[in-house]
């Protein structure tokens, strides 16, 4: 390029519209979106290979997940625990910790809520709900915060320990629900005693979905503000970038790790509480419904960004809501959605390689010179 052209390019780069920061922001949205679409196309190819119609599949997903008001309530109800479960992965991930055992915190949070309902049933409604929330949040905070502590104090790999603790939590839940906390009236399906009516959480007026949805959305927004706009969040992101550099700067890496993992645990525990208080009415084995694992995928798709988790959760809730219809109409097993989710996940992780490889606005810059 001639010197004049080079200067012109530099001027175009610095001036107004297409700054580097903007290119990064656009890339942060386009890449995950492209990965999502790529994953869905790969899944469509998979469906074609086994002789099913992808068009019919996605049409059914639309119909059962997003087509009618009824399907929307179904989807939003499923999104509520996913929002909170995804936060349990996303918050520690900003610190560089890959924690995938949110399922354990959800389960224990649900049991804690059920236990509160069983052991102290005579409180006034709002107090009972607050008590359940505190118990569930505490259970989750201890469980996941413990993982952060193990990582900081003993250097234990948090991915492995979180998954082990998830299995232990499910075993603990089964033990408690079938043993000490068992409701003698629940014969076929062991569970804790049904919550008193005043402890039950109702629906958001006009929406037909329980308040857990509002709690989840609020939690996502608060998390985004925490990470992006507060000093603690900034400190956390530095720890996530380079722990040693953060420590050299004097940042309390351990406190941040334990604090953020505990916060993630609080959210997951609350997800369990809402499942018990708003959906099932008691704590039993159906608490282990895999929300924790779908939450992992949502968090990665949203690049661990609290605001992006909201649409991502709704999308995946839609996929899962349509699972029943797909099973019946297309004669596919319910693991189909799992395959789709796995493919999307792989596509998202592959898109990491494409980061910064493209000069997104080069075609515009070239025109300007």
């Amino acid at each position, binding site marked *: 390029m001639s010197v004049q052209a080079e200067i012109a390019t530099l001027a175009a780069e610095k001036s107004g519209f297409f700054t580097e920061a903007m290119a990064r922001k656009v890339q942060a949205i386009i890449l995950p979106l492209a990965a999502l679409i790529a994953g869905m196309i790969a899944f469509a190819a998979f469906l074609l290979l086994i002789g099913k119609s992808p068009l019919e599949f996605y049409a059914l997903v639309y119909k059962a997940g997003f087509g009618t008001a009824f399907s929307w309530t179904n989807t939003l109800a499923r999104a509520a625990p996913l929002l909170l479960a995804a936060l349990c992965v996303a918050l520690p991930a900003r610190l560089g910790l890959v924690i995938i055992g949110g399922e354990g915190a959800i389960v224990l949070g649900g049991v804690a809520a059920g236990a509160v309902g069983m052991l102290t049933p005579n409180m006034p409604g709002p107090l009972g709900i607050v008590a359940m929330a505190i118990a569930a949040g505490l259970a989750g905070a201890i469980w996941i915060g413990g993982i952060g502590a193990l990582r900081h104090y*003993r250097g234990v790999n948090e991915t492995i320990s979180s998954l082990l603790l998830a*299995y*232990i939590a499910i075993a603990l839940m089964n033990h408690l629900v079938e043993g000490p906390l068992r409701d003698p009236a629940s014969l076929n399906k062991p569970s804790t005693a049904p919550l008193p009516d005043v402890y039950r959480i109702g629906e958001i007026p006009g929406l037909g979905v329980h308040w857990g949805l509002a709690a989840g959305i609020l939690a996502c927004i608060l998390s985004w503000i925490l990470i992006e706009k507060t000093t603690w969040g900034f400190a956390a992101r530095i720890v996530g970038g380079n722990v040693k550099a953060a420590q050299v700067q004097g940042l309390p890496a351990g406190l941040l790790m334990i604090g953020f993992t505990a916060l993630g645990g609080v959210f997951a525990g609350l997800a369990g509480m809402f499942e018990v208080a708003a959906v099932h009415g008691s704590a039993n084995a159906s608490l282990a419904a895999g929300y924790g694992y779908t939450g992992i995928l949502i968090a990665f798709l949203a690049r661990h960004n609290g605001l992006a988790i909201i649409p991502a959760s709704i999308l995946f809730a839609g996929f899962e809501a349509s699972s029943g219809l797909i099973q019946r109409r297309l004669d596919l*097993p319910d693991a189909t959605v799992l395959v789709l*989710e*796995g493919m999307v996940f792989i596509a998202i*992780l592959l898109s*990491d*390689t494409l980061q910064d490889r493209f000069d997104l606005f080069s075609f515009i810059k070239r025109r300007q010179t």
Partner: protein
Amino acid sequence: MTGDIGLWGVPLAIFGGAIRVSTPFIFVSVGECLTERSGRINLGLEGTLVFGAMSGYAVAYHTDSAWAGTAAAAFFGLLFGLLHGWICKLPKVNDIAIGIALMIFGTGLAFFFGKPYVQPVAPDLPAIPLGWWSGIPQVQAALHINVLFLAGIVLALATTWMLKNTRVGLTIRVAGDSADAARALGIDVDRVRLWSTAAGGALAGIGGAYLSLYYPGSWNEGISSGQGLMAVALVIFARWSPINCLFASLLFGGAGALGPALQSVGVTEGYYLFYAAPYVLTLGLLIATSSTTRAMTSAPGELSITK
């Protein structure tokens, strides 16, 4: 001499159970040991294990041969390992996240294709009744040893020898300890890791086939309960030595057999807590053997979780 052997049933059942339950751990952990020695961590082995179980069962059912099923499971495990290794070659890819993704993908795929195989019965892998000399049924059951267990012992010994004494073993170890040194020697680090991961996947597939073709001996969606993941933790505890992986697998097998052993003598209280024993043991050992201050002895230098 038949008769009630009372509480002796418990240690006997634990012994027999240790052998029975440890076999998949042996294969998966030696496989993961190979992968990690080359400098890569494969957390997707859980998905590979489940898919190996499903594919092994399906092929054994269709071909009426358990060994054909095992071979098929090894083949599919190899494919999953290749997929993991190939994706991890690309720059900026988080290999722990890829492992999780493949865990979900492998499990989903296995459940998807495995639906029609829940009911049908496939032939089992052969076992050698080493307890023929005793009249007590519990002793006979405990000494009914599967061929794959013996194969696993041979595998652990062979892998140890290979890593120490062969050129291939040295190549793997160099790639795992120092990528720079490997490249200086002209070794293609990515290719070594690719094939180590593939081999690890194949072994994990065999471990999965054992689950569905011998113990518990049938295919269903609950067949694995984190064995693939525990094997990864086990490798760290075993300090990346295949022989230690063998002993650690036996330890975990014993812990896993605690629940059924106690059940067999009538202890049913705390059922779930005993079933949680292997996970608690794994976690406890992981905590005891991890440290922030000392670099883990004999950890491959290039492994991302120990850097």
